[in-house]
């Protein structure tokens, strides 16, 4: 299958306009030409194409992630400042089974988990079926697994698979 990566070209075009911060005709033409050739060239280096099925699911996911970033920032700040009500934070590793297989979905899951302070992506087994995370304040392992699977993994699977 040798389809032109139209999505990549569009993203590169938008990036070009954002970088230059203008929609002047010259930049539009130059950006379009660049996007076309760069997308075509990189297509040969990276033949794996994302199959985006339901992009509209990305909107509620982005909202949930934003809320979680704010929430986890507050949570980590409380741990740092010792405002956890006398309770000592319990850091620990958790491993959870993953059903998501699409590499683009996994990449986005890694971005989400790193962007929320309090969780760091540690390891993914070779067949991407087991994910290891480190959590700053691990109180209820089952709850973490449930949150990650329901809030992030399910929408990502709906988008990519």
């Amino acid at each position, binding site marked *: 299958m040798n389809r032109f990566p139209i999505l990549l070209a569009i993203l590169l075009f938008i*990036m070009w306009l*954002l*970088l230059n*911060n203008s929609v002047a005709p010259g930049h539009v033409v130059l950006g379009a030409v660049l996007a076309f050739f760069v997308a075509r060239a990189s297509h040969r280096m990276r033949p794996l194409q994302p199959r985006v099925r339901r992009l509209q699911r990305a909107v509620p996911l982005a909202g949930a992630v934003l809320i979680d*970033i*704010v929430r986890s*920032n507050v949570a*980590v*700040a409380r*741990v*740092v*400042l010792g405002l956890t009500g006398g309770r000592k*934070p319990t*850091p620990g590793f958790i491993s959870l089974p993953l059903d998501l297989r699409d590499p683009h979905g996994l*990449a986005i899951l*890694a*971005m989400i*988990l*790193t*962007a*929320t*302070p*309090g*969780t*760091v*992506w*540690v*390891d993914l087994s070779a067949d991407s079926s087991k994910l290891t995370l*480190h959590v*700053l304040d691990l109180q209820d392992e089952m709850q973490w697994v449930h949150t990650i699977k329901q809030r992030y993994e399910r929408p990502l699977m709906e988008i990519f698979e």
Partner: protein
Amino acid sequence: MSTIDLPAWAAIPASILLIIGGSLALIGSIGLLKLPSFYMRMHSPSMGNTLGAGCVLVASMLVSSALLHRPVFHEVLITLFMVMTAPVSATLIMRGAIYRTRVNAERQRRHTDVES
């Protein structure tokens, strides 16, 4: 010092955002300094990296849009690139730390084996 005419609708939210972003980065750095273990210290600077940086970038968008009298968006790209690159370094550091912990444990075990 020259005075810049910054309208209040941009100046007030921008300053609030800068204060929030700065405090988050500061708390994150304090955490880096005083949290007890390496794995715990991993988490705290990412506060300044995510919400802290986000607040500063939104403030920057507000101020430059107000000064140039047209919308300025290219800070979005900084956010995008930061979010895209952060997992790579975080995972590398984390795996390096786990490898070291394992090697040290192994060495200690061998040491006690020789002694006994």
